[in-house]
């Protein structure tokens, strides 16, 4: 389990007091807003559309029940009783008061939480597969290495002023749930011919204004070389990355401009210099960190639980939830449970203080007190015995976390958009809600099957629209909200960027357009063929035709 060492604890406590002093000096006028802004951003505090917003970091999306209860308490005491889980596996509070933020941070520090490296041109919070350590399809637990990367990157003296922000994601499983191909660096654990686990290193992916799929620059990197290799990549980026133009400063542009081959050469040359130095990861260090993530005290089950199987057979609503929201666990008799934060008419990713507390209690009762945050803005209880699933399901239903829609059309990723974000061009949340209402019928959702709709309120792409099977990007057309539609994006191991299929559609027309896309899919799909496969087989044409009519397809061609 993730643990702070002494260094972290002292450092965080010091930072809280330092920030308390800075806030005091801002309120007393010793610091101007220009002087204060960079300081508050270093502590995760933004000024948004309506108020300040605090982004609290959740390393690789993993929380203890104690930490989740503290987030609930913070929501109630310092905010308006809720928080928003983001696509970066973090939580944002929308309404903290500047004068109370130091107390808020001090409360968070009591459960080893903070907001450092939640913003700025630093190495941001490391993200990982939400099913790490429990997935049936895993090579190895990536949290061990996510934690090693976290420790290495925390206040790394060389990398606190990078050309731009820097995001690293890890997956340990064949099926990529951490979107590693659209991060600055993605690390996918793989096995070499001898069965030794290591990393495929992917660099230069990213979304935003210039979306790109990352390039594999090394097929296999031994574990001991992880930090020296990352250091070499960061050094090349720090040295050659562009600082003259904010829009060209991400590593993806460097990799693109140099070409993957040249970039790789530079990294490998740098790496040869530092490879066997102080950054080499000794096996004992890996073991030390592995101990943080030891398995919980599982019970031993031989096979599936008979009572669970019986409930599946007789309770249709339970069966529907189990089919949608459970994932296979590496241990027999256990399941990974997804808690949907996408109820009908809700705000994707929002949870109230009461819901967070109830989820923490359920984690204690049924799941060894641990909760994960997914980049799809849902929660996960990673270790639930099948025996307890029916009781858990009923309890989740009571708090509104049992919508059986994981991975389906209403499990929409949505950024805060114009309802909260000062950079937004258009709203995201109400579009998600209108789509949710249109497809509220559970049988219909289920029939449509796996389909990811991602919505961003502006080109910054916090809602990952480029990698949604259907992506919506909010744009401002002379003061009116319009939405550009992209199709065929995907964030998994077969990552692809969605293609723009035609002119942007209005706020009023956007739900009909989505329905037209889905109608085309239903018409053309083969048995058991998911949306993305149908799209890849047929290309954009039938979908365009369905949204814009035959004429426009020919006009555009």
């Amino acid at each position: 389990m993730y643990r702070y060492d002494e260094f972290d604890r002292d450092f965080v406590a010091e930072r809280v007091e330092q920030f308390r002093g800075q806030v005091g000096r801002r309120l007393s006028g010793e610091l101007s807003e220009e002087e204060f802004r960079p300081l508050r951003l270093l502590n995760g505090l933004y000024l948004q559309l309506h108020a300040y917003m605090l982004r609290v970091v959740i390393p690789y999306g993993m929380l203890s029940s104690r930490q989740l209860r503290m987030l609930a308490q913070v929501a109630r005491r310092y905010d308006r009783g809720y928080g928003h889980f983001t696509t970066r596996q973090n939580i944002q509070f929308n309404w903290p008061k500047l004068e109370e933020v130091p107390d808020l941070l001090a409360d968070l520090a009591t459960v080893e939480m903070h907001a450092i490296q939640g913003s700025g041109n630093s190495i941001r919070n490391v993200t990982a597969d939400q099913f790490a350590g429990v997935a049936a399809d895993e090579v190895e637990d990536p949290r061990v290495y996510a934690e090693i990367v976290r420790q290495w990157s925390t206040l790394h003296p060389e990398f606190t002023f990078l050309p731009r922000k820097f995001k690293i994601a890890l997956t340990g499983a064949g099926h990529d749930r951490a979107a590693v191909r659209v991060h600055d660096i993605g690390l996918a654990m793989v096995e070499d011919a001898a069965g030794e686990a290591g990393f495929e290193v992917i660099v230069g992916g990213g979304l935003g204004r210039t979306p790109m799929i990352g390039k594999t620059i090394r097929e296999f990197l031994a574990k001991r070389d992880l930090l020296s290799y990352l250091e070499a990549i960061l050094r090349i980026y720090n040295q050659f990355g562009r600082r003259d133009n904010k829009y060209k400063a991400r590593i993806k542009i460097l990799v693109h401009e140099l070409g993957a081959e040249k970039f790789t050469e530079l990294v490998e040359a740098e790496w040869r210099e530092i490879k066997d130095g102080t950054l080499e990861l000794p096996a004992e260090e890996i073991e030390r960190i592995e101990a943080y993530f030891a398995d919980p005290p599982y019970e031993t089950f031989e096979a599936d639980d008979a009572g669970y199987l019986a409930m599946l057979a007789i309770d249709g609503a339970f069966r529907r939830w189990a089919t949608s929201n459970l994932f296979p666990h590496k241990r027999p008799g256990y399941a990974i449970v997804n808690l949907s934060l996408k109820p009908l008419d809700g705000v994707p990713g929002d949870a109230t203080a009461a819901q967070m507390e109830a989820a923490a209690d359920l984690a204690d009762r049924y799941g060894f007190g641990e909760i994960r945050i997914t980049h799809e803005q849902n929660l996960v209880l990673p270790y639930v015995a099948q025996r307890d699933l029916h009781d858990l399901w009923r309890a989740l239903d009571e708090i509104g976390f049992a919508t059986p829609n994981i991975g389906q059309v209403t499990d929409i990723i949505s950024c805060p958009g114009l309802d909260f974000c000062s950079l937004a061009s258009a709203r995201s949340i109400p579009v998600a809600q209108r789509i949710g209402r249109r497809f509220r019928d559970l049988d219909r959702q289920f029939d449509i099957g796996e389909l990811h709709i991602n919505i961003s309120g502006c080109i910054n792409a916090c809602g990952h629209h480029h990698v949604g099977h259907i992506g919506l990007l909010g744009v401002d057309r002379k003061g009116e909200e319009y939405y550009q539609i992209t199709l065929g994006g995907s964030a998994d191991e077969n990552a692809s960027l969605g293609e723009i299929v035609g002119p942007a559609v209005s706020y009023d027309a956007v739900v009909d357009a989505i329905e037209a896309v889905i109608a085309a899919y239903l018409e053309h799909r083969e048995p058991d063929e998911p949306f993305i496969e149908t799209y890849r087989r047929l290309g954009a044409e039938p979908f365009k035709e369905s949204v814009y009519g035959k004429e426009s397809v020919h006009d555009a061609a």
Partner: protein
Amino acid sequence: MSLQVVTANRLRDGIVVYLAADGGWRQRVADAALALDQGEAERLMALASAAVEARLVVDPYLIEVVEDGGLVRPSRYREVIRATGPSVETQADLPSAAE
């Protein structure tokens, strides 16, 4: 020339405010002082700069408003949302959050 008002965020809690005719900062756009011409707009912005110096508000700027049946509202949609809050019901509006 269109009607303008000055808006900003209050320093201590970040809440959206508008500059009123008496020099105070109010949460309702309806209470804002209207600038009918450039000179008036500049005078309001000078007051706002003084309020920044006095640590009352941050990042003041002028927005366009329209009078609609005796009511003043911002013309840009972004500013309507700033003035009235999120356009969606948030969890805070739901009874379960109010405990």
